[in-house]
C-alpha cells in the first residue's frame, strides 16, 4: 500500500509525458536523481507542494522580485514566477556541457576581437561581410577599444535546451549585458528557505563560486588603474525590465548602483557624483545596452549613458564589463557560421551543436529556406528590430505568403532556424505535475584568459502546454537549476581580499540618491502627518454624528478647513460660504483618502512615497522592503474603502505600517549622509505640516468652547495631549497650549525641538566650503529657530477686535514656514546639482555656411 503510494506521483507524471522528458533516460528508465527527487515530492504530497508554491509566491513578493514587462496594462511590475520543482542535471553530463559552452565563449571572444581588429573572418570569407558591416551591433567607435585582459568578452550567457539526440543544443548567445544570474541566485535562496527538505537526499553544487569569480575578475580589471578600485553597477533605471536584478546583484556583490547621470567624465577619468564630491570609478558593470553607453560617440540622444565614456576606455583609465560593441556577436546570422569560424580561429570543431541556422543572404540558403518555410522559425538577422520570431507552422497560408514576400524582398535581413523538438521537464501547474518544455540559461565569467561556469543556471519552462514560450516577457516560469552530484562536493571559497578597504568609499551615496532619500523622508512624513491628523478629525466627526441638514459644529468646520489647507487640495473645505460641504463632509473626506489622482490625498502620497522608495531600493533591508509591500497593500485597501468605520480602521492600520517603515529605516540605515538627508526631509515636512495646522486652527479667534476643542485636537496632533493634561488638568488655555507646542524643549513634537533636530541633521552633511562655518541651509534654520524660541505666547494670542484676526501669531508662523520652505531649495543647490539637462550639439553645415559655394 505504502509502496504504491510512493510511486503514484511519478507514475502519474510518466503517463502524462508525450515527448522525450528530462526524467527519463534513453532507455525510458527514470534517472536515479529524479527518482529521489520524486520520492521527496511524494512525502510532501501535491497539497504540500501547493502550500510551498504559495510560500514561494509570498517570499518573492516580499523580496520585491519583479520582472518589468514593457507596455503592460496594470502597472509596470510583474511578479517573478518560480516553479517549486527544480531542474536537475547530473554533474557528469554537466562536465560535457561545460566544455561545450566554454568553447563557445572562447570562440565568441575571438570573433569579437577579430571583428574589431584584423577582420580576418571577413577577408577570408568565413563569415559574409554583411554580417559585420550590416550588423546593428557593429559600432565603428568601438574599433580601437582594447581592455587589458586577454578576453574582451568578460561575461557571457547562453540559452540551451535538450535536442532530439539527447544532447544539449545551443539556442542563443547573450554578450552585451547578460541578465539572469541574479534571478538564478534569488531562486536558489527562496527555494532553500521554502523547500529545504527537497535537497535532503540530493547533493547539488553551489552558485556562490561563480559570484566570487566575478568579483575577482572585477578586482583584476580595477587593479589595472587603481590598487583599491571603485566599482559601479550601471543601470538604465527603474523602468528597465530587470531592474530588480540590478538592485539585487549590486547589493549582493557590494557595488554602488548608479545611473548614467550619476557619472561624469573629466580629465580622462570617469567620476561618481557623490554627496561628498567626485569619486573616481575604475570599473563599470553595465546593464545599459551598447549603443546607449556614450551619447558623444554612439547614440547621440541617449540619456542613459556617460558622454566621453569611450574616450576614457581608450586611454585605459577604466574598464567596462562587457565593453561596448560586444552586441555585434549577438547577431542571429552569425549562428550559421559558427562551425566554420571555430575551425578557422581555433582549429577545432564545435563541441556543442547550435540550432541549425540559415542566413537568407546567400542564394542557396535562401532557396532552401523558401522551399522549407512551413517547418522553420524566422528571425531578423539583427536583434531588436521589433520583429517577433515567427513559427511558420503556426501561420496561416496568407501570413506565410506575406512572410515569404518579405524575405524575398530583403533576404539579407532574415535568418531561418530549424524548429527543434525540445525535452519536457516536470512543472507544477494548477496543482498538478505536468511535462513542459524548458530551456536553461547558463552564465560564464572570464578570469582574464579562461571562463568559469556557474554551477547552475536559470531554467525557464513554457507557460503554455506543448508550446515553447519561455520568455519572461511572455509569462515563462523560472526554475531553480541544480547540478546534481553523487557525493557532497568539497567547497573552497576564496574571498576577494581588498587592500585598504575604505568602507565609505565602497558604498558611496550618489547625489541622486541623496535627493531620493531626502524625499523619502519628506513623503513618509507627509503621509504620516496627514494620516494622524485625518484620524483626529475623523474621531471628532464620529463623536458628533450630525443629522443631515443641520449646521455643522464650528470646531469641525475649522478642523475640516485645516485639512484642506494641510493638503492644499483647494477648494475642498476652504470654499467660503459653502455650508453644504460641511453638512455632508464624507465625500470630500473620502476623496482626500482614496483619490490617487488628487495631489495631496493619502493615496497619492503613498504612491509617491513608494515610487521614491523604489528609486533607492538598494538601500533598504529585506524587512523594510516587506513593509513597503504592506504599504502597497494598504494603498489598495484604502482605494476600496466605502464606509466610514472601515476608513478609521484602515487608517489605523496604515498608521502602524508607516511607523513600522520609519522604525525600520531609522534603526537600520547607516548613520551616513543618507541618513541625515532622510531625517532632514522628515523634519522639514513635519515642521511645515504642524505649522499649517496651527495657522488654520488659531489665526482667527473663535469662542472659547470652540477653541478648547480645537486646542485639544491640535495638542493631539503634536502628541502632547497627555502631557498637557498632566500639567494643566482640564483647564484649556490657548496661551499655555501654544507655549507648550512651540517652546517645550524636551518634548519631541514641539517646534523648538524639531528645529533643533533639523539643524543637527544639517550640521552632519558635508560642507562644500569652510567646515567651521554654518552653511546657508543651517543659517536659515537658525533664523527660524530663533524666531520660535523668542516668542511670547501672551503676545501671540492678541486679537484684532474688528476682524478677530491674530496677526502676530499668523505672521510669525508664516515667517517660519517660509524660511523652512527655503531649506529644500538650498539643499538642492548645495547637493542635488546632478539634474542638469544634457543636449547633443551636432550642427548642420547649413547653419555653418556663411556664404554660398
Amino acid at each position: 500500500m505504502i509502496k504504491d503510494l510512493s510511486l503514484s506521483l511519478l507514475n502519474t507524471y510518466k503517463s502524462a509525458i508525450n515527448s522525450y522528458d528530462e526524467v527519463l533516460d534513453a532507455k525510458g528508465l527514470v534517472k536515479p536523481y529524479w527518482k529521489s527527487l520524486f520520492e521527496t515530492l511524494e512525502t510532501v504530497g501535491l497539497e504540500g507542494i501547493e502550500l510551498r508554491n504559495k510560500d514561494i509566491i509570498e517570499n518573492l513578493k516580499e523580496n520585491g522580485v519583479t520582472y518589468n514587462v514593457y507596455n503592460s496594462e496594470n502597472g509596470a511590475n510583474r511578479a517573478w514566477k518560480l516553479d517549486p520543482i527544480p531542474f536537475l542535471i547530473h554533474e557528469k553530463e554537466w562536465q560535457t556541457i561545460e566544455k561545450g559552452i566554454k568553447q563557445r565563449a572562447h570562440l565568441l571572444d575571438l570573433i569579437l576581437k577579430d571583428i574589431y581588429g584584423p577582420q580576418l573572418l571577413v577577408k577570408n570569407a568565413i563569415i559574409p561581410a554583411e554580417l559585420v558591416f550590416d550588423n546593428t551591433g557593429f559600432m565603428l567607435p568601438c574599433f580601437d577599444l582594447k581592455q587589458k585582459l586577454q578576453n574582451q568578452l568578460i561575461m557571457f550567457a547562453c540559452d540551451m535546451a535538450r535536442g532530439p539526440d539527447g544532447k544539449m543544443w545551443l539556442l542563443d548567445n547573450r554578450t552585451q549585458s547578460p541578465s539572469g544570474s541574479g534571478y538564478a541566485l534569488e531562486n536558489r535562496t527562496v527555494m532553500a528557505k521554502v523547500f529545504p527538505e527537497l535537497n535532503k537526499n540530493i547533493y547539488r553544487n553551489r552558485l556562490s563560486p561563480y559570484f566570487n569569480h566575478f568579483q575577482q575578475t572585477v578586482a583584476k580589471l580595477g587593479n589595472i588603474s587603481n590598487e583599491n578600485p571603485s566599482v559601479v553597477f550601471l543601470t538604465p533605471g527603474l523602468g528597465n525590465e530587470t531592474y530588480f536584478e540590478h538592485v539585487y546583484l549590486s547589493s549582493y556583490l557590494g557595488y554602488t548602483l548608479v545611473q548614467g547621470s550619476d557619472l561624469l567624465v573629466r580629465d580622462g577619468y570617469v567620476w561618481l557624483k557623490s554627496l561628498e564630491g567626485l569619486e573616481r570609478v575604475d570599473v563599470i558593470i553595465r546593464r545599459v545596452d551598447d549603443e546607449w553607453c556614450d551619447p558623444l560617440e554612439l547614440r547621440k540622444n541617449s540619456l542613459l549613458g556617460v558622454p566621453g565614456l569611450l574616450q576614457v576606455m581608450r586611454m585605459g583609465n577604466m574598464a567596462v564589463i562587457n565593453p561596448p560593441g560586444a552586441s555585434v556577436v549577438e547577431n542571429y546570422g552569425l549562428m550559421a557560421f559558427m562551425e566554420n569560424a571555430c575551425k578557422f580561429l581555433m582549429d577545432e570543431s564545435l563541441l556543442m551543436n547550435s540550432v541549425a541556422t540559415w542566413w537568407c543572404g546567400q542564394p542557396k540558403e535562401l532557396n532552401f529556406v523558401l522551399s522549407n518555410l512551413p517547418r522553420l522559425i524566422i528571425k531578423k538577422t539583427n536583434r531588436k528590430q521589433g520583429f517577433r520570431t515567427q513559427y511558420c507552422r503556426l501561420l496561416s497560408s496568407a501570413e506565410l505568403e506575406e512572410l515569404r514576400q518579405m524575405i524575398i524582398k530583403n533576404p539579407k535581413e532574415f535568418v531561418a532556424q530549424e524548429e527543434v523538438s525540445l525535452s519536457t521537464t516536470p512543472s507544477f501547474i494548477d496543482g498538478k505535475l505536468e511535462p513542459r518544455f524548458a530551456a536553461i540559461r547558463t552564465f560564464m565569467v572570464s578570469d582574464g584568459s579562461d571562463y568559469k561556469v556557474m554551477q547552475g543556471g536559470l531554467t525557464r519552462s513554457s507557460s503554455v502546454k506543448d508550446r515553447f514560450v519561455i520568455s519572461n516577457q511572455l509569462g515563462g516560469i523560472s526554475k531553480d537549476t541544480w547540478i546534481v552530484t553523487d557525493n557532497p562536493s568539497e567547497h573552497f571559497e576564496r574571498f576577494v581580499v581588498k587592500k585598504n578597504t575604505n568602507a565609505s568609499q565602497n558604498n558611496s551615496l550618489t547625489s541622486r540618491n541623496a535627493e531620493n532619500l531626502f524625499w523619502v523622508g519628506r513623503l513618509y512624513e507627509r503621509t504620516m502627518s496627514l494620516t494622524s491628523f485625518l484620524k483626529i478629525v475623523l474621531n471628532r466627526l464620529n463623536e458628533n454624528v450630525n443629522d443631515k441638514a443641520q449646521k455643522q459644529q464650528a470646531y469641525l468646520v475649522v478642523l475640516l478647513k485645516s485639512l484642506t489647507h494641510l493638503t492644499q487640495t483647494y477648494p475642498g473645505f476652504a470654499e467660503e460660504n459653502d455650508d453644504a460641504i460641511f453638512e455632508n463632509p464624507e465625500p470630500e473626506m473620502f476623496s482626500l483618502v482614496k483619490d490617487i489622482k488628487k495631489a495631496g490625498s493619502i493615496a497619492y502620497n503613498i504612491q509617491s512615497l513608494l515610487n521614491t522608495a523604489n528609486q533607492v531600493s538598494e538601500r533598504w533591508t529585506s524587512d523594510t522592503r516587506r513593509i513597503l509591500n504592506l504599504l502597497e497593500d494598504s494603498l489598495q485597501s484604502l482605494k476600496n474603502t466605502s464606509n466610514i468605520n472601515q476608513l478609521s480602521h484602515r487608517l489605523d492600520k496604515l498608521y502602524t505600517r508607516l511607523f513600522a517603515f520609519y522604525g525600520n529605516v531609522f534603526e537600520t540605515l547607516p548613520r551616513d549622509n543618507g541618513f541625515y538627508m532622510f531625517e532632514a526631509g522628515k523634519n522639514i515636512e513635519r515642521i511645515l505640516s504642524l505649522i499649517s495646522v496651527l495657522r488654520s486652527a488659531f489665526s482667527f479667534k473663535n469662542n472659547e468652547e470652540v477653541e478648547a476643542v480645537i486646542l485639544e485636537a491640535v495638542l493631539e496632533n503634536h502628541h502632547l495631549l497627555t502631557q498637557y493634561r498632566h500639567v494643566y488638568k482640564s483647564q484649556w488655555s490657548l496661551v499655555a497650549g501654544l507655549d507648550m507646542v512651540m517652546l517645550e524643549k524636551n518634548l519631541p513634537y514641539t517646534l523648538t525641538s524639531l528645529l533643533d533636530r533639523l539643524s543637527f541633521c544639517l550640521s552632519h552633511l558635508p560642507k562644500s566650503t569652510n567646515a567651521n562655518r554654518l552653511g546657508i541651509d543651517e543659517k536659515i534654520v537658525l533664523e527660524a529657530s530663533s524666531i520660535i524660541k523668542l516668542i511670547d505666547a501672551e503676545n501671540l494670542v492678541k486679537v484684532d477686535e474688528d476682524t478677530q484676526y491674530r496677526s502676530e501669531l499668523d505672521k510669525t508662523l508664516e515667517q517660519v514656514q517660509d524660511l523652512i520652505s527655503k531649506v529644500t531649495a538650498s539643499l538642492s543647490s548645495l547637493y542635488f546639482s546632478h539634474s542638469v539637462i544634457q543636449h547633443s550639439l551636432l550642427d548642420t553645415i547649413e547653419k555653418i555656411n556663411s556664404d554660398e559655394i
Partner: protein
Amino acid sequence: MRYKLRHQTVYTYEEPVDNYQSVLCLQPRTQDSQICHSFNLEVSPCPSKIHFRTDFFGNSLAYFSLHEPHLELKVIANSDVEVLPKAMPVLSNLTCAEVRQMFVNNRPLKVEVLQYQLPSNFIKWDDEVKEFAASCLQSETPFYEGVSLLCEKIFKEFQFKSGFTTVNTPLKTVLKERKGVCQDFSHLAIASLRSLGFAAKYVSGYLETLPPKGKPKLQGSDASHAWISVYVPDMGWCEFDPTNNMIPNERHIVTAYGRDYADVAPMKGIVFSSGSHKVKVEVDVIPV
C-alpha cells in the same frame, strides 16, 4: 596650391555650461594628393588636454572636455595644407551593369566597399530616390559617365539655398523641394548611387572661393564644403562635386571621409545646460 586654413567656431550659451564633451574632426588629411604641413587648435576656455586619435576611416579626431562654467566656447583650427595636382587616371569604360556585377562577384572588392553600399545614419532611400538615379545610371551607360550625369542632374535641377534644410531634413524633402546645400546634394548623390548597388563615400572639406572680379576677398567668406567619392573599378575612388558640377581639384581640401555627415561632423558635442545656444562659424581659405 598651398593654403592657410582657418576654421573658427563660436558657441554662445544662454545659461552657463559647466560640463562639455566634444569630438572635433577638423584636421585636413595627409594623403596622396594632399599634405597637411601643420595643424593646431586654439580652444577657449582652454581644456586641460586635447587628445588626438585616428578613427576607423583614417580621419584625425580630437577630443576634449570642459568643466568650468562658461558662456562662450571658441574653437579655432589653423592648418597649413598643400594640395597637389591630381593625375587623372585613365577613364574606365565599364558599364553600370558590369560594375554592379563586379561588386557581387569580386569578394575582396566587396569587403572593401560594402560599408559604402549600405544605408547609413543620414542616407536611406526608397523607390523615389532609385527612380531619380536610374535615368543617369542605365545599365549600358559607362559608369564614370553615369556618375557625372548624376552630378550634373543635381546641379541643374536643384537650387542651392542655405537655411532651407537642417542636418535632419530627410532626403525625401530635399528631393521634393529641389533645394538644399552641399551636404544635402552629397547625401542625395550618395543615396542615388547606393540605391542602385554602387559604393560612395561622403567627403568633408573646404573649397577655396574666389571673390567677385575686382573686389577684395572678405575675411570669413569661405565655408566648409562637402562632396562625394565614388568607387570606380579600375580607377579606384574618384571624387565628384555635385554642388558645383565639377571634379574636385586643387581648390578642394579634404578633411575627412565617412559614410555620411554623421561620421565626419566637424564638431560634435554634448553640453549640460538648461538654456539654448547659438553658433557662428567663420572659415578662411587663403592661398599662400
